[in-house]
């Protein structure tokens, strides 16, 4: 006969979902799934930086909401937002040689830079200053793809909002620099990959040679490190 049985079954299905939000998940009954703060713990929130990271898989059941400021989704290694410039921790040198390739390849043309000059007025392979207009950048990652020196990389920090957008959104060299250690932390796989290891060694050698050559003018000796933030 089937009189209304479909409707009743449907109601049982939704009721089951309703109950499961209380009963299943990593946390039981009253505990938040993912181990966030408890629902009965009304006023305490995790301190900034200690928010639990919630990783949901295809088998996750129960509540799906990630309460963003208090809980976070994990960022995967390939996740990219804005470019950063890397300096090597060992010697404090910026990897960038100011070759301008990234500026040329950048589709919206939001990178520009000035070349550093040695004591004799000859150009030195490092940037004097380096700018990226973050409002124009479209996060394509071409700059990082094309950089022959692995100097520019895509960062994962997505919390960039602020109240002023005319000056603060044009990032200068100082704003862009991050250490190679930081990069190794956010991109462990890429950092350990054979490619990047080989590239690092090669670049180091090449850069050293070019630097020495440029500096072998009237005044010998190394200039002060360009920037160590």
């Amino acid at each position, binding site marked *: *006969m089937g*009189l209304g049985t479909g409707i009743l079954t449907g109601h049982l299905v939704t009721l089951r979902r*309703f109950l499961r*939000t209380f009963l299943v998940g990593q946390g039981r009954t009253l505990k938040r799934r993912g181990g966030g703060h408890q*629902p009965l713990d009304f006023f305490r929130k995790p301190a900034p930086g200690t928010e639990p990271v919630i990783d949901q898989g295809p088998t996750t059941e129960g*509540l799906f909401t990630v309460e963003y400021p208090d809980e976070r989704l994990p960022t995967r290694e390939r996740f990219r937002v804005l470019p950063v410039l890397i300096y090597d921790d060992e010697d404090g040198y910026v990897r960038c040689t100011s070759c301008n390739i990234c500026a040329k390849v950048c589709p919206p043309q939001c990178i520009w830079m000035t070349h550093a000059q040695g004591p004799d007025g000859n150009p030195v392979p490092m940037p004097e200053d380096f700018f990226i207009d973050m409002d124009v950048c479209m996060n394509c990652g071409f700059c990082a793809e094309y950089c022959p020196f692995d100097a520019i990389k895509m960062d994962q920090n997505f919390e960039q909002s602020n109240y002023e957008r005319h000056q603060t959104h044009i990032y200068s060299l100082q704003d862009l620099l991050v250490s190679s250690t930081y990069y190794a932390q956010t991109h462990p796989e890429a950092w350990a990959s054979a490619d990047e290891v080989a590239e690092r060694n090669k670049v180091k050698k090449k850069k050293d040679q070019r630097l020495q050559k440029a500096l072998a003018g009237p005044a010998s000796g190394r200039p002060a490190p360009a920037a160590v933030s």
Partner: protein
Amino acid sequence: MVTDPVLALWASLTLEPIPWLPWIAWLLIGFAAAFPGIVAYMVWAERKIAARFQDRIGPNRVGPLGLLQPIADAIKLITKEDVVPQAADRIVHVLAPVLLLISALLTLAVIPFGYGRLVDRTDPATDAVIGWLTGLAPVELPSGLLYLIAVSSLASLGVFLAGWSSRNKYALLGAMRSVAQLVSYEVPQVLSTIPAVLFAGTLSLVGIFNAQDQLGWFIASPPGLVAFTILMIASIAEVNRAPFDLPEAESEIIAGYHTEYSSMRFGLFFLAEYMSMLAVSCLATTLYLGGGSLPFFSLRGLLSDTLASQLLVNALAVGVFAAKVFFLIFVMFWVRATLPRMRVDRLMSFAWKFLVPLSIVNLVIAAVWFEIVVRPTNHATWGLIDLTWWGAVVLTGLLEILAIWILNALLRLDRAATDPRLIPPRLLVPTSAPWAQTTLRA
């Protein structure tokens, strides 16, 4: 020990000494404070519960568990600009939401929420003096149910005025749908209240509550159960909630009759919708779930003349009443979280071709139950569990099943005959027509 103001307030709430005092007390405590507060937190509960049905958390940013969310929403609504469209009929536009809200509030005015006090009253039929519970109803009307049905029909007037005065095609369409729906579902709603009237022998809601306190809940009989179900279905349609929310179907007609309303005037519609949900739940509780009474056990014996006993019993009864009402409201949330919106022709055929005949047949079956069980034994339900009772359950139960089965079969036959998808496609122009032949040849 007993302070006078407390006693006076209590006496006033239970309709005794001064005729106008209870009204003032109910207006100030119930209608100006308690009911809007309950409604605000119904909205919160609905958001929380609907969220859980969808594996979400729901509001939790304003205050712990989002408990201050209704207050934040109210502040937002009040501070928003109130726009009345230039072409709108101003007075009617402003009046419409108020009318809706008044309808919902007036409905609540005759509901017995608790036990009230035990007073002596002469039974008009037998002239015997009987104990009568005043039921803690704001107003006790001898024909409360009639009044209740009359004021709840005001809602469709409010809805139509809103849609008409807005001068907006969507609002008008929504209003027209709404009136069609409200008028249609009012019929089964009213018809399904009649078994309760039949069992109790009175139109007074307080009387119906008294009868259930004595005879047992009316839902515990096959005709009562069917009537209660019809009443709930029709009530959900009456308050325009899913799956009967065609009047405000967002995807078709924006927001229906309140498309042109903004600010707190929209808030009034919102308030009225939830208020009428509360009202129909209270009505169903009073008619079939025995109001504030507990199953198998009457609190009447605990009532005495002392203030303490009255307060205690009534606190308990109001708690029980609130629990039942909340359960019914939860069921409404649950239905909304489950069922998609109905098609308009299905909506109408369900009301007129299924619910109305079923409630009429149910009335007859209720009369059978009345004759077999209620009248001879003076027990509606579990006051008397013996062979007569079981026999009556089997008999009326079978009759109900038969009625539902036949009506369902008829409805299906009718659907099969009228469903456009099941009618074989026909050519609009018969090719045998001579002029069609010439056109085709040319």
